[in-house]
Each structure stands twice: as C-alpha cells, then as structure tokens.
C-alpha cells in the first residue's frame, strides 16, 4: 500500500521538522552557555583575574593561565597564519591541478581529521624531546600551529576560490602583475573568509587540552618567557574538574573561556568589517 500525503501536509511536516531541529539545537546551546555562566560568573571578579592560582588552583585566581593561553595561542597563530595563507594562495592561484596540489590538499584534509592528542604526541616527541625545547610555550605553540594549519589552508583556499574570476581578469587587463592582482584585488575580497578560518583556529587553540598538556605541561606559575612551561585555561579547567580540586574555580575558568572566545569573534569581525568598508 502506498502512503499518500498531499503537498500541503508534507509542507507542514517539513516545516515542522526544520523548525524543530533549529529550535532544539538553539535550546541545547543556550542551556549549556547559561548553565556555565550562571555557575561561573559569580566566581569571576577582579582578584580572580589578577592573582595567580595557588594551592593546586584551589585558591587564588587564574591570572597565569590567562597569560599562558594568550602566549600559546599567539605563537600558534603567528606561525600558522602566514604559512597557511601562503599555501592556500599557492594552491588556488599559482598552480593548476596536478599531482603536487593533490598531495598537499590530501595531506591537509587528512591532517584536519587527526585527533589533537596525536598532534600532542608528535609535539612531545619532536619539539619537547628531540628538539630539546622541554615543556614550553614554544613547543605548545608550534604543536598547535601544526594542528590548525589544515583548517587555515582549507578555509583560506575556499575563500580565495570564491573571489569572482572576472576580478582577476579586470586587474590583469589593467596592466596588473600577478602579485599586484593578488594583493590589491583577490586578498581584500577573500579576507572575510580567511579571517573566519583564523577565528575558528584561535578558538581551537584556546580550547585545546590534550595537545597542550603533552607539549606545554601544566605548571601553574606565571610564565616568564617562551621557554617556560605553562598551563592554559582549558587545561586548568580540565585538571580542576577532573581531579575535583575546585568546581567553583573550574566554572569560573570555563565562563571566562566562553566570554573570551565570544569577545574575539566580536572584535575581529568588527575590525574586518571596518577594513572591508574602507576598501569598498
């Protein structure tokens, strides 16, 4: 027997399902964020942000972990962004499809799917042990740079390819060289997509635990240089919660993590929009 549904009924069902899916996702997301903020916000105050943790993190604030997080993320981004964008431009503008581009793209895609703890293991063996960096911000930053490189390459390449081909033709037809065309036309048009990839990567760096524990360690004191071990906020949260040291401070750290990632999104997008509206 064939079940017959008329067009209007199927329209209702489809609409209901799509609406329901969107709503459930939103409710779950909002619930998580609200829960963390309700638990965490009361913990956050000026001294929580400015004093170092002591007594394993049971007391004091989280100042050193904020600094450690920033250091590691900045190192990773500074290293990965130029290489990632460079590779993306190479793939999108400087070569035709051939065996080399396919190898690069396949590697990038495979690397993007590897669990971060594998990067941690690699970083531990290569940077920490072999290169003799020890547990350090540098080793952690380098490891995270490798981890986010595929994301940056892929999002940047997509953004570059999305720039209409006619823009390039116009630039060339006006006597532009390849480099001038890329700098003056392609890059400004692709920047929004490229920056989205970078924001995504910053988020991943800030949130990473496994790879960081392996490579940067989990020392609680304020890092003085790139060669010091440090503990990032995400790692701090993980240790506080998993070892039951202080759930209050764990929630405070988590709430701050959410706020920071939110702020980075808002600020960077505002900067990009200003840049775009200037160039338009």
């Amino acid at each position, binding site marked *: 027997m064939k079940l017959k549904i008329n067009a209007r009924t199927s329209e209702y069902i489809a609409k209901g399902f799509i609406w329901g899916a969107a709503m459930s996702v939103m409710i779950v997301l909002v619930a998580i964020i609200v829960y963390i903020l309700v638990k965490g916000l009361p913990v956050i105050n000026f001294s929580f942000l400015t004093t170092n943790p002591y007594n394993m993190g049971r007391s004091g604030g989280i100042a050193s972990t904020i600094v450690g997080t920033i250091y590691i993320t900045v190192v990773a981004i500074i290293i990965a962004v130029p290489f990632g964008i460079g590779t993306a431009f190479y793939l999108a503008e400087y070569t035709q499809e051939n065996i080399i581009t396919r190898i690069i793209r396949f590697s990038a895609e495979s690397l993007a799917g590897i669990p971060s703890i594998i990067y941690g293991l690699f970083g531990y063996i290569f940077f920490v042990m072999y290169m003799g960096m020890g547990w350090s911000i540098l080793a952690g930053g380098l490891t995270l740079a490798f981890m986010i490189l595929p994301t940056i390459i892929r999002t940047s390449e997509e953004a570059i390819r999305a720039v209409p081909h006619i823009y390039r*033709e116009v630039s*060339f*037809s*006006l006597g532009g060289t390849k480099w001038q065309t890329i700098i003056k036309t392609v890059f400004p048009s692709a920047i929004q997509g490229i920056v989205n990839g970078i924001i995504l990567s910053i988020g991943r760096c800030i949130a990473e635990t496994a790879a960081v524990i392996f490579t940067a360690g989990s020392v609680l004191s304020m890092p003085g240089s790139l060669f010091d071990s440090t503990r990032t906020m995400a790692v701090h949260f993980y240790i506080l919660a998993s070892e039951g040291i202080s759930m209050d401070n764990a929630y405070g750290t988590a709430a701050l993590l959410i706020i920071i990632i939110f702020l980075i999104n808002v600020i960077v997008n505002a900067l990009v929009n200003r840049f775009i509206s200037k160039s338009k």
Partner: protein
Amino acid sequence: MSENNIKIEIKNFSFYYGQKQVIHDLNLKIHKNEIMSFFGPANGGVTTLLRSLNRLFELNHNTRSEGDILIDGESIFDPDASVTELRRKVGMVFEIPTPLPLSIFDNVAYGPRLNKKKSKDEINEVVEQAIKQAALWDDVSDRLRAPAMSLSGGQQQRLCIARVLALKPEVIILDRACSGLDPISTAKIEESLTKLKKQFTIVIAPHNVQQAMRISDRAAFMLMGYLVEAGADIFTHPQDQRTDDYITGRFG
C-alpha cells in the same frame, strides 16, 4: 588608407583551445582612430580574437596561438615585450560591467596606481579626466568615494570605460560592452565612443548588427572562427552571401 595609418595588423592568426581551433588563419589590418567592429553569431571567435589583442587569453590554460599580431609594427608576442605594458596600451571593457569592490575613485585609479609612482595630485587629475572623458563626471563628481557597486548598470559600464581611459591607452577593446544595458545607456556609451575615436583606436564587438551599423567605420564579419569579410561598406554591399544572410536576419 596609407600603410603608416595602420595601428594593428593581424597576420595569419590562428588560435586553439587545446585541440580545438577557434580562429582560422585570420588576416586583417585595423587603422588608427577608427571604430572597427567584429560581429557574428556566438562561437564565431570574436571574443577570443579580442582577448588575443591584449594577450588576456594567457590566463586560460591550454591555449595556443599561431601567426602574429603587430601593434605599431611590433609583435605583441615578442618575448622581450612586456605583457603588462601591452595591457596598459590596449585597454579592455568587458561584457558585463565589472567594477571591482572598491570606491568609484579607486576603481578608476586602479590602473594608474599599478604603474610607476605617481603623486596624489597626478592620480586625482588622471582620474577626473578619465571620468569626464567617459561622460560620467556629472553623475558621480559628488560621490567619488561611494562604492562603485552602488552605481546603475550603465554607469558601471561607463566607469569601466573611465577605468580603461585612465590607463592612457592607445587602443580600447569593448567586448559586447552594451549587451546588458538599456537603450539610453547604450546611446550614451556609443556617443562617447564616437568622440573617443579621435584619440584612440577602438575595437568593438557590438552586441547586435544594428549597433555595428550605427557606430563602426569598418566592420568584420566572423563565422565559426573564419573572417568572412571586412570593410567599410559591409552593411550596404556585402560581398558574401553569408554576410548578407546574417545582416538581413536570415540566420543568427
């Protein structure tokens, strides 16, 4: 026409996309200060020919040309010739209006800025002059910093002409540049072209036969990659039956 009046000379020119030949052994001379139109049905090779004049086809992979194109007696394919210089000399306006996502001013200043260092005043002057030449000044003089995308289609296309004029070219190519425009905008552009030919050599692919008749000094009819015939009286006295059929609308 005397020999020294020749701006562009196309000699035994053939063009291939991969194995497919799209222009067959084409010979033609284009004079200084004339409007030369190339017309014919789609796939006739017109666009390819126009894109050969500034070597823009080189952006496509897997293309190959034979024969030669001379501008002022010098081969544009000469290995020593600079392709960026050629493209400044031979400016191109595309089929659809193609403002870059920049301001009106920056669009027109794009070409001059690529060139050697110019002072701000020089750029301002070149831009203003180019926009005036393209008959766009009255429309945009009070909003040069506005996005070029905010202009109407006809204005955008005149902006593209201004952008080419700012290069101070010698030849201007227009590839079906009026095909998406309303009759009034088209008339404005045709009017400016007739003025501009005093200073430039203009090569145009008109979007229909009527436009070719209105504005060309000479015209060339192309069919399936072959030049069927070319001349000043091609519309009144076509030599070839196929030209006659196309002009009178029996096919195409």
